[in-house]
């Protein structure tokens, strides 16, 4: 079932709905509780950031939503179906910290990969790739290979690939973590534009407070050992889609940064180590 074929109903299904999610890993040192009692709802079209120090389970939570890991207990629903079914139905697109492009495929070939694997015809594929290449501003680079691109450009290709099948949910695991600060700010603004144009909900893992504040409708602050949600801070900065670079120098922006930082510091355990405050 594709999102467009769903009849419009009055009750809005959440893009993501997690209920009582626990995740325990067994290691040589014994059981490690990565996540404990996670409840989270992400509305369609909403931009959510997961932020917290290293080891707070934010990446694990994203992987559970993507059905790359399964919860020890609790349920995760994506657009009203199980996370597993959502993966089978290709309801989400995903981007990782590394672009993860196939080095033997061109930019166009990499973006076309999911379409190719799901049997989209060549003509339709080419048209969609053209759209996406333009969307991420790589029009002149479609026939280049990944090793001919900068890190920021590679990451843009990865985002285009994640958007290839018009998912209504975009999962991103520190996608800009490996980029320099200037490229990173540029990519953040680009991502806001792309998210607005596609209307997709985004779950965005980061450990940068300004990044989370700049991008999100709500920032989910997580604390470690065991990983759980400490606070959910709504960003009173206007619609994410209308934000631009000048927001970074706005007073309200700094207020929100302070609010998120306080939520991080307010946790009883050792504090937000590993969180960038830049």
């Amino acid at each position, binding site marked *: 079932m594709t999102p467009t074929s769903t009849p419009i109903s009055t009750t809005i299904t959440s893009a993501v709905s997690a209920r009582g999610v626990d995740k325990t890993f067994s290691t040589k040192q014994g059981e490690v509780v990565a996540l404990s009692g996670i409840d989270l709802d992400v509305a369609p079209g909403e931009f959510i950031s997961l932020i917290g120090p290293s080891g707070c389970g934010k990446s694990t939570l994203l992987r559970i939503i*993507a059905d*790359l890991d399964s919860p020890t207990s609790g349920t995760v629903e994506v657009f009203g179906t199980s996370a597993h079914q959502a*993966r*089978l139905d*290709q309801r*989400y697109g*995903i981007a*990782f910290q*590394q672009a*993860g492009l*196939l*080095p*033997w495929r061109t930019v166009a070939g990499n973006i076309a*990969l*999911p379409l*190719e*694997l*799901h049997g989209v015809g060549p003509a339709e594929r080419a048209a969609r790739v053209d759209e996406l290449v333009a969307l991420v501003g790589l029009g002149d*680079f479609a026939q*280049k*290979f*990944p*090793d*001919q*691109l*900068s890190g920021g*450009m590679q990451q843009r290709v990865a985002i285009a690939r994640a958007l290839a099948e018009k998912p209504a949910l975009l999962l991103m695991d520190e996608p800009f973590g490996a980029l320099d600060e200037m490229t990173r700010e540029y990519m953040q603004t680009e991502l806001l534009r792309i998210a607005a144009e596609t209307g997709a909900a985004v779950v965005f893992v980061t450990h940068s407070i300004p990044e989370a504040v700049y991008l999100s409708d709500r920032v989910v602050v997580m604390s470690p050992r065991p990983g759980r949600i400490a606070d959910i801070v709504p960003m009173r900065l206007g619609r994410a889609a209308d934000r631009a670079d000048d927001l970074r120098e706005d007073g309200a922006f700094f207020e929100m940064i302070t609010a998120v930082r306080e939520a991080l510091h307010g946790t009883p355990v050792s504090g937000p180590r590993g969180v960038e405050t830049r």
Partner: protein
Amino acid sequence: MTDAAIALTPPRRRARDRGARLRLWGYGLLGILLLAVGWELYKAIGPADGVVIGDARVLPRTSDLAMPHVWEMATRLLEPVTRAEGARPLWLEIVLAAALTLGIAAAGWVVGVVVGIALALVMQRWRLAESAMLPWIVLSQTVPLIAFAPLVRSWGSRIEIGAFEWQDWMSVAVIASYLAFFPVAVGALRGLQAPDAIHLELLRTYSVGWWATLRSVRLPAAVPYLLPALRLAAANAVVGAIVAEVSTGLQGGIGRLIIQYAGQASGDPAKAWAPIAGAVALGLIAAGSVAILGLIFRNYRRAEATQ
């Protein structure tokens, strides 16, 4: 912008590669020249009876019988094989024999590559198969070829299915493939297991099966591992074919000529070296042909340059 600068670098790199390749050819020729000079130098200054320590001769005799002059060996190539009327020149005889051996080795190579890749696929697909089969594959290479060759020949001679009759050259090809499959099986397995975890995970998010993953990620990622394995297999197939020709007594190939001319060495020492040189050239041609595959698949080798 820097993006444009990045896009512009590859052509310059390619030009540098071309210069490097020419230099490599130069070094190759220099190596052959040095070998010839070394040969003549040792022949000129080495003791006539070689160097003997205890009962073992550690350096060869320098007589014309044991070590003919380089130019004698070269000119001998242009002379007829025998003094008989209408005999072919020696070089032509060598080329014809080498062509036959190359054909058999190529057949063996193809069989070896198919079997090797098939084994690697089975071992990649099932962990159990890997632990069950890999030791046997390694062990298979410790069986002495000389002992094994006559057996293959006698098994083969019993095969007769309808119009199909087992030919002697097929035994030689089977033995060549026995040596060729090994590097392919090991190299292909390494290659199929080589994809980055992130690529496999991405394919998992696309919820595609083993075949699609194989086609779009595992096989392309295996190419950089497969190419050197295929080249090794080519060299192995040539060695296997030559040894098998000798031990099964197949006529007409270069292996047979090595034995035959060695028997005539006391009367015609330069002649015995001709098929040996032919065998060396054969190995180089076989391995070099595989390098062409590397050019065809060069887009799949991009990861080698970046990682």
